[in-house]
């Protein structure tokens, strides 16, 4: 049997050392984290940029418009190629801006979208292209993958700007990105709203660590697009589009 009263142990050197150790550990952790998360490391997950590619810029002085032609066939890799025959639509979107050589201020923007649907019964690719100044009312069929690449993985004479935006005679380059099956903000929002209902995921509830785990797995898959490619072209002074009669020859 014992009746104890509380005793107050004096704080000795050991306690002080522990506190100093904790402070040192906190400082070391902060330094480590700051090194890990420095801005340079933040670029690790950006889409691959690759070398600058050739492009052709041409002015149509009759219409005072600038056209660009560039290829980005490398966006269709083996996985995307396989997806093209799945019978469900695959969309390839180019969004780009035109810059003056040596500048990072965009002069104009342009876009090109291409939806490819393999018709499982007719065994053709149905291609719908939407681009500035051109709205297809009916899908164009093609039976070969080469036809798909030609229409969707390269742009020819894509309207890129006009003389009110781009001064003629200026060396220009194009910079943008190509996305395969980009997820629109609306769809992304819908998905995330759905994610907030964990009962539908068979996983966990908010506040549970499981919840963020599966959200992470989920978001890893959707991202912004199934495949992304940065496109930058070499600077070049635009040529002049030949007049229509010459083009015919």
């Amino acid at each position: 049997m014992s009746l104890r009263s509380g005793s107050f142990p004096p704080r000795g050197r050991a306690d002080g050392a522990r506190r100093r150790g904790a402070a040192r550990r906190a400082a070391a952790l902060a330094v480590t984290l700051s090194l890990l998360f420095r801005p340079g490391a933040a670029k690790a997950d950006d889409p691959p940029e690759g070398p600058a590619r050739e492009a052709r810029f041409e002015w149509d002085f009759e219409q005072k418009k600038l056209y660009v032609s560039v290829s980005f066939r490398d966006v269709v890799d083996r996985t995307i190629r396989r997806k093209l025959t799945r019978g469900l639509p695959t969309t390839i979107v180019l969004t780009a801006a035109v810059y003056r050589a040596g500048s990072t201020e965009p002069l104009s923007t342009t876009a090109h979208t291409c939806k490819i649907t393999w018709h499982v019964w007719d065994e053709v690719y149905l291609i719908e292209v939407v681009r500035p100044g051109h709205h297809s009312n009916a899908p164009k069929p093609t039976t070969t993958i080469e036809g798909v690449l030609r229409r969707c993985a390269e742009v020819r004479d894509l309207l890129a700007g006009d003389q009110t935006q781009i001064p003629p005679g200026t060396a220009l380059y194009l910079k943008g990105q190509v996305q395969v099956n980009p997820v629109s903000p609306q769809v992304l929002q819908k998905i995330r709203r759905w994610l907030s209902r964990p009962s539908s995921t068979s996983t966990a509830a908010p506040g549970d660590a499981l919840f963020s785990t599966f959200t992470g797995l989920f978001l890893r898959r959707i991202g912004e697009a199934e495949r992304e490619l940065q496109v930058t072209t070499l600077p070049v002074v635009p040529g002049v589009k030949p007049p229509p009669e010459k083009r015919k020859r």
Partner: protein
Amino acid sequence: MRRLDPLRLEEARLHHRALAAVLLLSLLAGARPAGGQEPAPAAEQPPTPPVEADPTPPAPLEAPPPTPDRESAPNPELEPPPVDGGAPAFPVLDPPLAGSRAAERNQVRYLLENIEVRGNTRTRPRVVLRYVPFEAGDVIDVDDPEVELSRYRLLGTGFFREVHFSLRKGSRRGWVVLIIEVEERNTIVVNDLWMGLAAETDARGNASTLLPYAGLDVAETNLAGTGITLGTAVGLGPDQLGLRLRFLDPAFLGGRWMTSASLVYNDARDYFGNDGVLYWPGLSNDVPNAAPVAYTRFGGSVGAGRDLGVAVQLWGHYRLESVDADLPSTASHLRGGRREPLDFDIVPGQSQLSALRATLQLDSRDHPTLPTRGWFATAQAELALVPLGSDYGYERIDLHVSRWWRLPWGAHVVRLDLFGGAIVGDAPFFEQYYVGDFSDFLPDRILGLNFDRRPAPNFFDTAIGEVRYGHYALKLGGEYRIPLYRGQRSVYGIDIFASAGIFALANRAYLERPNPRFTGAARLPLDLTANFGFRMDTSAGGFLFAFSNVIGLLPLREGEAR
């Protein structure tokens, strides 16, 4: 390959449905083949010539005008994302959106003959189909956003590494089979890993002996391919052990009800008293100036819930626990120079806890780990049932509301938090509000275990210094977050954050017998909390690297008793 429905479907029924669908769609479209003939069955349509030089487009099964739903639905294809992920500096030339109606006229539709699930070795086909809103006999539009959304839903289960949808020819022209190919992933996941240092307190309220603790929470999230989660967790500290086993079925008997169950076991200790603690008899491994309580808890809960809307969920739980407590038969401590008996808020020896709990939850956040806008609110009521054998009769009501705003500069995010709770009756101390759950400078409880023995830092020198457990709690807090990084592979986002708040935690006994040392506003048991660190959203889950707990181990005021 697993075929869900044998190909020998009820041919007559399917054929009837197909004809009805074709006829209906034809009427809707008002389309007629060239020559004004009656619409031919899809099987009789001539194939498109395999030429590429702008041949006539092959006729899809049908091309009805867009339904109102389709017109209002967003068309992701026609909305080019901005360059570099941000809003374009100026409008895109001649936006392709103008062609949306034309694009919608070119729908490709088939009659769905069957759905096949492939690649699933553990997950049952019915679990996959739970997330697919189509069935044999439906007309499937290849542009229907539900197709892609279903794929995302399957990925969101966490059961699969990859999910691919494709169509292949069915047994008749115009009929297709939807193929769902999945690649299963390891569904045993680590949910939580805790490691930290708790501390004993010396006479001045500062941290003295550091106590390491650790915990691990793992779960199989697709038990035997049924979609059921079975998880276990363990928490360990000096003389303490916590175990938990839990179960969640998100679709009980394939229906809309969710069910959950859990088993808990705690072999725990806690320490009571503020100053000059005297008690009898004592336990082994006692710490100075604190009356020890050793207790075990064993029991479990069962619950059922369902969605009331897109973002609202309702749960009900029943909990039954057996508690065995070993505590001093007599104990007292000094408060304001007076010696007072210590109340442990637990029944000595064997006791039962029997309680009902209802939880209503609203979650409209745009992201669960790094939200930028929306609400997260829970209202919870718990009623301990004395008539059902509970030795603890109490009612507890909690309300927790959080709101996020995205600021116009730099995508910074602000959050405001409000928590309020009250307990009426005789709740055991482990069901009361604990100061570590409100102060970031102290470790939270893990699986119900409390490893830390310190009071709150007490920045304002109020009565909070003598409160570790309370019956009334209120907290108002805010957080400012700055995005540092966004990625798409293993690390999706890293934000740096700073948070601060003020909280009050009151113990009913101390309110009834206030400490004469505190007068005026100091009688209000208030304290400040703050934190800073990093929030990370990764493929392994959400992580928080925060520094307030380390700061909490440092003495605030050297040599001053609190």
